[in-house]
């Protein structure tokens, strides 16, 4: 038996390292950190997050603050020069999913941006955070101040019962709706809570001082709805939710139109441009990109993994960028890019796995419906 996990050189530990070990986690290197891949097992954890509430440690992600000399003055327009989001029109304590772009419209990272009273709060991917910080330092106006909150931990509580569990120890969080955030307290610890996540479920992300992480994680995990969930199930949950993963489904060779991230490039920004790679990105939105990100459901039980070739008849039309077995649907699912002509819903395609062509069908995403709690719902 072989495991193809790549060894990484310097592995740092996260604030909850000791706690994960105490919970029986199996730890693996990921994005330069020792991270819990699973506790009781990926399928059980996955299903628990779908039916109750799962606690994820996402402290490897980068938390950044950007402010000007006078609070948020000028920060929104500076961010609009680097990303295609609408930040000037973003209300206080509201957040947007956005993309850090290079000059060709290639995606450097995907991230969450929140306007707060005195600053903008960004959450970026763990594997890209050093590059993101360097990029922001290089391209943001000099008068803006960028802080990397490397003394903050980040927890995610995801699932239909996350609100019950969290509101019990953090009163008021039930008033948040999807993509809004605010300052709260848990057992006297100041926390920044957003109603967001990356599993397709209702849920929260909780930023808190690293020194208090163990105490707060233990308190959340002590709620009857909650079990700790590892990276393995985090990946299968986000795949079922049709959400792209940076470094796999998104990278500098993909642009927002190809990736199907139209919601991240609102109408005003498409009309006005003024972000890196705007010409290519807007053209792809208007005229259609030559390839598109699609979802695939495979026949049988054999999963197709990242890198597997996708065929339409005899022609290779694309490549799988994420693939696995869906614990909720009990079938193999995948995400990948294919030529636009092959990207039509329900089209039968084939995926080559170890020399065999497996039948697959282009399927709508998300594979499992999102259950976000939106305004007015």
């Amino acid at each position: 038996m072989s495991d193809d996990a790549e060894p990484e050189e310097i592995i740092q530990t996260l604030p909850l390292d000791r706690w994960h070990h105490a919970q029986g986690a199996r730890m693996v290197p990921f994005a330069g950190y020792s991270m819990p891949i699973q506790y009781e097992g990926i399928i059980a954890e996955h299903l628990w997050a779908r039916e109750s509430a799962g606690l994820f440690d996402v402290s490897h992600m980068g938390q950044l603050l950007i402010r000007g000399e006078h609070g948020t003055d000028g920060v929104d327009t500076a961010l609009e020069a680097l990303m295609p989001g609408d930040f000037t029109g973003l209300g206080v304590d509201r957040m947007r999913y956005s993309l850090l772009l290079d000059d060709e419209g290639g995606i450097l990272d995907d991230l969450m941006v929140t306007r707060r009273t005195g600053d903008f709060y960004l959450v970026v991917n763990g594997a890209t955070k050093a590059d993101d910080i360097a990029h922001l330092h290089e391209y943001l106006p000099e008068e803006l101040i960028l802080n990397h909150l490397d003394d903050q931990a980040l927890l995610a509580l995801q699932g239909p019962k996350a609100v019950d569990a969290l509101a019990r120890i953090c009163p008021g969080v039930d008033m948040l709706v999807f993509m809004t955030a605010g300052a709260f307290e848990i057992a006297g610890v100041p926390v920044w809570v957003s109603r967001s996540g990356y599993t397709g479920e209702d849920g929260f992300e909780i930023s808190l001082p690293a020194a208090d992480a163990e105490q707060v994680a233990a308190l959340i995990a002590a709620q009857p709805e909650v079990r700790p969930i590892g990276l393995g199930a985090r990946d299968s949950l986000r795949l079922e939710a049709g959400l792209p993963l940076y470094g796999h489904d998104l990278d500098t060779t993909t642009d927002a139109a190809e990736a199907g991230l139209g919601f991240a490039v609102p109408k005003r920004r498409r009309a006005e441009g003024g972000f890196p790679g705007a010409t290519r990105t807007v053209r792809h939105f208007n005229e259609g990109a030559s390839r598109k990100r699609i979802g695939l459901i495979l026949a049988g039980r054999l999963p197709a993994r990242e890198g597997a070739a996708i065929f339409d008849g005899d022609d290779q039309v694309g490549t799988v960028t994420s693939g696995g077995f869906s614990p909720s649907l009990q079938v193999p699912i995948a995400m990948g890019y294919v030529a636009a002509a092959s990207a039509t819903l329900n089209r039968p395609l084939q995926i080559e796995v170890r020399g065999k062509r497996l039948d697959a069908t282009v399927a709508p995403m998300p594979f499992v419906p999102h259950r976000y709690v939106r305004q007015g719902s």
Partner: protein
Amino acid sequence: MTTYYTEDHEWISVEGGTATVGITDYAQAQLGDIVFVELPATGANVAKGGEAAVVESVKAASDVFAPVTGTVSEANAALEADPALVNSAPEGEGWFFKLALADPSELEGLMDAAAYKAFCDGL
């Protein structure tokens, strides 16, 4: 019947000239939930150390190597319907395939149960 173990976490249980092969309890615990097992065809020749099967967990595909050289006489059909047998009974009902040994002397380089346990404890 004697059981041997490899450093790649396969076990091979030998009786006369035939042997049964699977992955160890340690291996299944490392892999996590197993959702698919790709087995060699009956009649296939496998070489010691060569790829003989593929086990797919939720997260990844892993190769399973042949502990010794031989000809596959049977693949475990039960794994097709219930791949999770590898998790629940890795060294029993979750066996992968049986083979006719080509060279029984190849067994000499493998570990016995005590040596394998010591090997795992050192990982």
